[in-house]
């Protein structure tokens, strides 16, 4: 069940009615949201429910055993921590990476003339697995650290892992942010509703109009035939992809945050004008913030962070970013993308260390250039396609059929404008909307949705981050 569909609108109206019209107590509200989340996830494939239930059960059980008040020794707690995280990562590994590593092994053996008729299992990747596994890990670790109390009631943990607005593509909400909110009912006031209307509307605009049309009119044709492109069309295609992925993913996050607000939950922002970052470090503090901070707190810092020698820090950065690349997808192109981001971050640290600091505008342009260039392996289906795409930048003579039409140009400008608009603009829109009565707010939201559904193309394009 995707956000921009009739199914989801009907589903959400039913859930809102159960929560706000029937006025249940806190516990009943949590049970309703848990049931709704399982219906939402089961709509993809009923078999996925068992997996999500299993992940939640591991998090709940481990949380009960590793908390500061649990009656177990430090040794037992350490074993529980290691076993539970290994089980969670093992689940992720089997479902997400088995096919990739098996195929890579097969290719390696074939290259060494050890070819056989290999029979591999075709394993289906459950949507959102990477996201809720990371939430489960953060719950266990936060309980161990004493940042949150281990929950006695499994409903709390199961709802934290499965809450439908952020279930399939984030934001990855920390247990310390989410769990305190399920102990009370926060009725959305005028400001929360207004913010939700603005977020859902901009999210739908970004996804249904800008990202989807850019994908069909520009990005897909260019990346399908990179050998037919020249430098200009390759550059425009790349810019198109940068705008598409920003609008696609930040659009999803906006809708998720808005939907959660209408249910009385606050989620942290996941994007903050990423393409105006003036350093790569800054970029990662603006792009997919919930994942970047998760990787920083649960991987980079525990590995040693930036407290050791320069060489050690560089190694940790490279390793962390390579693993971040692998998290995004089971493919060498994603590993390359992560590794190159790591290398660029190391280079940036070195330059900062020796005092190289160009003017801010040049820094922004440089960072944008690097980020754009590194989107090539991310979007390309393989390393081979990446190389072909890069080769297009060396061609000036060949004719490419994809042109920069007025529609494509307008979409690029609109997408970039949404990235560059100051945060205060959205806040002002929200403040204006907050002055409207509740009924009028709902009518505005409905009219905008109606117009955006009409403007969108037929059919539903899945969100890019669903595959991760």
């Amino acid at each position, binding site marked *: 069940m995707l956000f921009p569909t009739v199914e989801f*609108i009907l589903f959400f*109206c039913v859930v809102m009615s159960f929560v706000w*019209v029937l006025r249940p107590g806190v516990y009943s509200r949590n049970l309703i949201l848990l049931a709704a989340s399982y219906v939402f996830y089961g709509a993809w494939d009923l078999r996925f429910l068992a997996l999500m239930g299993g992940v939640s059960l591991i998090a709940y059980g481990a949380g009960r055993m590793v908390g500061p008040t649990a009656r177990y020794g430090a040794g037992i707690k350490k074993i529980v921590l290691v076993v539970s995280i290994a089980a969670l990562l093992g689940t992720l590994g089997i479902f997400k990476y088995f096919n990739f590593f098996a195929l890579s092994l097969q290719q390696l053996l074939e290259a060494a003339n050890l070819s056989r008729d290999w029979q591999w299992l075709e394993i289906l990747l459950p949507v959102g697995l990477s996201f809720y596994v990371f939430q489960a890990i953060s719950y266990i670790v936060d309980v161990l650290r004493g940042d949150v109390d281990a929950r006695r009631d499994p409903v709390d943990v199961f709802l934290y892992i499965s809450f439908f607005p952020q279930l399939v593509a984030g934001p990855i909400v920390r247990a310390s942010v989410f769990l305190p909110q399920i102990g009370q009912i926060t009725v959305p006031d005028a400001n929360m509703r207004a913010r939700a209307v603005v977020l859902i509307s901009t999210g739908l605009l970004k996804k249904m109009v800008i990202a989807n049309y850019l994908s069909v009119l520009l990005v897909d044709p260019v990346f399908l035939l990179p050998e037919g492109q020249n430098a200009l069309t390759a550059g425009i295609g790349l810019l198109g992809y940068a705008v598409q992925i920003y609008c696609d993913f930040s659009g999803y996050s906006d809708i998720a945050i808005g939907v959660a607000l209408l249910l009385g939950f606050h989620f942290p922002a996941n994007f903050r004008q990423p393409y105006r970052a003036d350093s790569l470090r800054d970029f990662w503090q603006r792009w997919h913030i919930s994942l970047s901070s998760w990787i920083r707190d649960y991987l980079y810092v525990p590995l040693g962070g930036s407290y050791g020698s320069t060489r050690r820090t560089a190694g940790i950065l490279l390793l962390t970013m390579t693993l971040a690349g692998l998290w995004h997808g089971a493919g060498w192109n994603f590993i390359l993308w992560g590794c190159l981001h790591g290398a660029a971050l190391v280079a940036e640290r070195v330059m900062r260390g020796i005092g190289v600091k160009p003017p801010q505008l040049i820094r922004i342009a440089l960072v944008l250039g690097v980020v754009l260039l590194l989107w090539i392996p991310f979007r390309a289906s393989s390393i081979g396609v990446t190389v072909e795409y890069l080769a297009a930048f060396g061609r000036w003579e060949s004719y490419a059929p994809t042109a920069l039409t007025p529609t494509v140009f307008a979409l690029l400008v609109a997408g970039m404008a949404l990235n560059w608009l100051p945060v205060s603009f959205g806040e002002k829109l929200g403040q204006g909307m907050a002055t409207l009565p509740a009924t009028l707010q709902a*009518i505005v939201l*409905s009219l905008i949705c109606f*117009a955006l559904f*009409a403007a969108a193309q037929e059919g539903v394009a899945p969100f890019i981050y669903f595959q991760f």
Partner: protein
Amino acid sequence: MGEIRAFSITLWVALLACYLISGGRLLDWVFGMPDIAQFDDWLIAAVDWADQLKIRLGFGDWFGALRQWLHSILGV
């Protein structure tokens, strides 16, 4: 609590209004749903009856007209 209830109820009313002016799209959508045994036939019959009523009351496919207009502006 009163305001968010009004908000939720207005969303339902808006959804009904959208249905009234969106031609036969709901029927198409119901046909596209996975089969749920007898419930399917009952649902299709109900939506078909509602669609006929809509036509008798004079509601047109304004959604389709808006889509055509927006797509011509967008050039898609």
